[in-house]
């Protein structure tokens, strides 16, 4: 009866909280909020007998939370997450692990004491949900007895979670834990954490274990006796044939619970105006209404729910809620959402059981619960954010690893190619001699292509290259080409010998001259004013300036491509717009004049000759841009002369 009085006052927690010992009060505000919430739930579910049940229950709760209060240092200032702090967090969070995995086995009798010990007359409604802010309430209900084992662990975890809300490392880890409802999940959680963490965990694990043991000493002798009896009772049952005590236990629990449900159904009426907040109808209605409202994304819901005090008292609220449900129903029917329609109709039916006072109470309780959950919601959002950051960080690392892998492979292939070429030295020597005899560009290109093809064909017969993948062979071809072109580079770059070199020299000198006077505002260039900020585009100049360091036409092409794309990027950066050719062309001209790479004309001739027919897509486009820019420079020089 004491309980009933409490609920009527709308303050069921006060007495209980005082009796629950000082450990609750030593925690932060948020924490006590959660603790309060827990008590709330328990009192609502367990009904009139809750008070008698509370003693062992609280005791267990307290003991379960002890490892944290003892191992976890007082909440440190969250605004200064220093390196020290980090280490501490890891230790703390692993204390959680230890606790959960150890006690999962050890505290089996705990929940049973808490639920329906044989000594207590069973008249309370069944435990529909153990923890209202548990995200997987549904799972909870369904998994039945096995889940009840972990309810205490969860509650403990949630409290710790509140403590450590702002701590990164714990955040992600705790998330895993709070969502797991089975032992295997717990184990997974531990494994995951082991992956992330390191040796420190094992060290701290022992700490957690010790403290857990220490805390278990706090259980009174009476409780211990009862726990022991419970365990013995479990194993005395005839269904002992199952080897796995875990499964056995859950089966037993389930049966027990079913019994309880039936008994409870017989003894307490579905709708009980005397015991409004504890009767099944009320809890049902609350759950259904919550599920419907949570799926309604409508601003009106806020205005109704946040403003129930307005209007003409109780009637106005119940009218408002029914109106709103009608609205939702109409919407659902419009959308042909049959599931939703059925749910809303069901809610309407459940609510119609209550008078306006009952509905008001229902809404008030829901609002309170909602408020309590807000901080947890924030915490979850924070966790999600952290996880997303972590994910993107991991993705970056993976990319980097892949890059390095590719690079290593390429190095290996290059070495192997060198071996291969040494084997075919005579063949290469003949090729070099032959090549020097050729004077027409077509013949030269043809000769190079044929030799390259021959080398590649022979390569696939070579023993080393037998098992090579396509990717590796492509890579090998690249290196073959690079080496081959290296042998004949000088003859290929200057097909006309000194004449070409002389031409390049003249061009180089002219560019140097014109480079002294050229400005971005030059009347032939007129680079748009908004792009002048990046002038003289040193990074693009650096790219093109080293074109002579590359020997193979493909590498030279890539060098040009990099230069052009750098320009494109810089223009996009400067103007915030996509770089169009109107901007790129003058900038490219300016950069070429300023960078003035030696032997520019010969390079163009060389790439066009040996690579021209292999250009594709954007290579072809940027090569055209590049050559047309050089063409434009020639015209510019002519005008200047």
């Amino acid at each position, binding site marked *: 009866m004491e309980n009933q009085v409490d609920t009527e006052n709308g303050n069921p927690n006060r007495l209980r909280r005082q009796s629950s010992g000082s450990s609750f009060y030593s925690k932060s505000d948020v924490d006590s909020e959660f603790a309060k919430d827990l008590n709330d739930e328990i009192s609502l579910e367990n009904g009139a007998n809750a008070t008698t049940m509370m003693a062992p229950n609280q005791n267990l709760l307290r003991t379960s939370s002890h490892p944290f209060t003892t191992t976890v240092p007082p909440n440190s200032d969250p605004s200064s997450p220093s390196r020290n702090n980090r280490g501490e967090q890891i230790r703390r969070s692993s204390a959680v692990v230890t606790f959960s995995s150890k006690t999962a086995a050890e505290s089996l009798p705990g929940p049973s004491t808490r639920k329906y010990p044989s000594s207590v007359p069973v008249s309370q409604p069944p435990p529909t949900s153990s923890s209202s802010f548990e995200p997987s309430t549904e799972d909870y209900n369904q998994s039945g007895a096995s889940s009840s084992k972990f309810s205490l662990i969860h509650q403990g975890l949630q409290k710790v979670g509140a403590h450590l809300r702002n701590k990164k490392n714990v955040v992600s880890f705790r998330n895993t834990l709070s969502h797991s409802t089975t032992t295997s999940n717990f184990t997974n959680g531990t494994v995951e954490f082991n992956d992330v963490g390191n040796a420190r965990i094992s060290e701290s694990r022992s700490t957690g274990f010790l403290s857990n043991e220490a805390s278990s000493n706090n259980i009174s002798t009476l409780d211990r006796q009862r726990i022991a009896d419970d365990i013995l009772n479990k194993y005395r049952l005839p269904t002992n044939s199952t080897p796995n005590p875990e499964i056995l236990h859950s089966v037993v629990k389930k049966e027990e619970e079913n019994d309880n449900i039936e008994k409870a159904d017989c003894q307490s009426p579905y709708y009980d105006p005397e015991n409004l907040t504890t009767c099944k109808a009320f809890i049902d209605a609350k759950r259904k209404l919550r599920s419907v409202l949570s799926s309604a994304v409508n601003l009106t819901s806020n205005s109704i729910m946040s403003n129930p005090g307005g209007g003409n008292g109780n009637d106005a609220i119940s009218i408002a809620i029914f109106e709103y449900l009608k609205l939702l129903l109409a919407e659902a029917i419009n959308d042909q959402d049959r599931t939703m329609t059925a749910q809303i109709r069901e809610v309407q039916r459940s609510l119609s059981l209550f008078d306006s006072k009952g509905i008001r109470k229902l809404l008030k309780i829901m609002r309170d619960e909602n408020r309590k959950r807000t901080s947890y919601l924030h915490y979850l959002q924070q966790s999600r954010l952290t996880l997303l950051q972590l994910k993107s960080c991991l993705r970056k690392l993976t990319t980097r690893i892949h890059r390095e892998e590719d690079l290593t492979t390429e190095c290996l292939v290059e070495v192997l190619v060198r071996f291969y070429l040494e084997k075919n030295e005579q063949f290469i020597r003949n090729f070099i001699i032959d090549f020097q005899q050729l004077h027409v560009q077509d013949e030269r290109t043809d000769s190079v292509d044929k030799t390259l093809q021959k080398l590649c064909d022979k390569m696939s017969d070579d023993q080393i290259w037998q098992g090579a993948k396509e990717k590796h062979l492509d890579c090998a071809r690249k290196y073959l080409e690079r080496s081959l072109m290296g042998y004949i580079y000088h003859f290929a770059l200057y097909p006309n010998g000194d004449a070409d070199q002389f031409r390049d020299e003249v061009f180089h000198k002219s560019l140097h001259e014109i480079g002294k006077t050229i400005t971005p505002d030059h009347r*032939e260039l*007129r680079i*748009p004013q908004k792009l002048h900020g990046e002038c003289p585009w040193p990074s693009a100049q650096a790219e093109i300036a080293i074109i002579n360091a590359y020997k193979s036409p493909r590498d030279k092409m890539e060098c040009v491509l990099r230069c052009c*794309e750098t320009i*494109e*990027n810089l223009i*996009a950066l400067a103007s*915030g*717009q*996509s*770089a*169009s*050719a*109107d901007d*790129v*062309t*003058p900038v490219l001209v300016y950069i070429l004049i300023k960078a003035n790479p030696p032997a520019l004309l010969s390079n163009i001739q060389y790439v066009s000759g040996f690579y021209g027919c292999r250009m*594709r*897509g*954007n290579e072809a*486009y*940027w090569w*055209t*841009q590049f*050559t*047309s820019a050089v*063409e*434009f420079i020639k*015209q510019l020089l002519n005008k200047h002369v």
Partner: protein
Amino acid sequence: MLRTLDINFCSSLVLRFVKGQFHEYQESTIGAAFLTQTICLDDTTVKFEIWDTAGQERYHSLAPMYYRGAQAAIVVYDITNQESFAKAKNWVKELQRQASPNIVIALAGNKADLASKRVVEYEEAQAYAEDNGLLFMETSAKSSMNVNDIFLAIAKKLPRSEAGGGPAGRGHGGVNIAEENPQSARKSCCS
């Protein structure tokens, strides 16, 4: 494969085609100089490779380097600018004379959304296009009117490659030319 010569207005037209969007004040951050877009046409897919060239008059002499080998060209003029239409006609002439003989030329009267400021009549352009065997449409990069359609029309008119229209071949054959606004080149982009 389509190699497109794109001058001025084309930037926005092409962006509209490739990205499906038109930003009045800010275009997307990718480069607009070289873009690709694949469209499906009956049983074949056509991959457009759209080339952008500098549109200013001083770079005109470089244009042949770009439209050489192109399979299609879109010549774009501004319906609110008579001079741009005249220049478009010059481009068409140049393409017919110098580009590959099989080139598909399309004429696009852009800024169709600014009908109140129209100075180039639809009928006039239509007649000119018919006389010269061009595809003709009035487009708006802003409202995306006819943007996809003109590319689709080009794709239909492109000669199928010998292997039954497969996009694998490295065929060229198309140029897209937009007319330059004489006052200020950049601003003429359909803003």
